[in-house]
């Protein structure tokens, strides 16, 4: 799966939890879930669980703590899918 395909799927997953619509319109690799999209910590957990289902991977605590931006999340997804 290419990086672009992963970002596209991730964007769909993130959408229902976004508070800042302006931030979502400008979503890019640099987007930070908490600062740019104003997603709360409980919904961040929902995103992680959706990512697990969508990409058929398992996220552990160490990986979860890093998944705060699109870029970091894509990197973790790629790493786990190739593991």
């Amino acid at each position, binding site marked *: 799966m290419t990086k672009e395909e992963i970002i596209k799927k991730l964007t769909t997953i993130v959408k229902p939890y976004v508070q800042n619509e302006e931030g979502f319109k400008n979503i890019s690799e640099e987007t930070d879930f908490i600062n740019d999209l104003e997603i709360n910590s409980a919904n961040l957990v*929902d995103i*992680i669980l959706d990512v697990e289902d969508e990409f058929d991977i398992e996220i552990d605590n160490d990986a979860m703590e890093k998944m705060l931006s699109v870029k970091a999340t894509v990197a973790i997804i790629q790493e786990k899918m190739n593991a």
Partner: protein
Amino acid sequence: MKSSEIIKLLPYQKPFLFVDEISDVSENGIIGNYTFQQNEFFYEGHFKENPITPGVILTETMAQIGVVCLGIFLLKNEISSAKKPQIALTSNEVDFFLPVLPKEKVTVISTKEYFRFNKLKCSVKMMNSKNELVCRGSISGMIIAK
């Protein structure tokens, strides 16, 4: 972990403690009950001369027993005198079916959907003493020992 130990660790007190007893608890769920007293503070205003337990209080009772007490049990190995449970309600969706009047005893039955990354999501229902469904829904919270 005993029922009384769980209740002692709750961060609530009267008049906002809605747990009398935990009758069953496991990694997968919890059952507990509370009896609404005649003189609960909210009956004076809800409603005028017609005391009925507010839906928010029923939701709170379901959250205290079904999510917070269960969360404390699930975190039992991390909780100590120095690390107390810290909680926050994050979402709830509840449907109501029957009113609850003063002096009624209700039983809350909660089933864990998941507990991951400190978020506990439960499917919760409340029954009255005739074993009729009072309300049911889904409640989530974040809980950590800190």
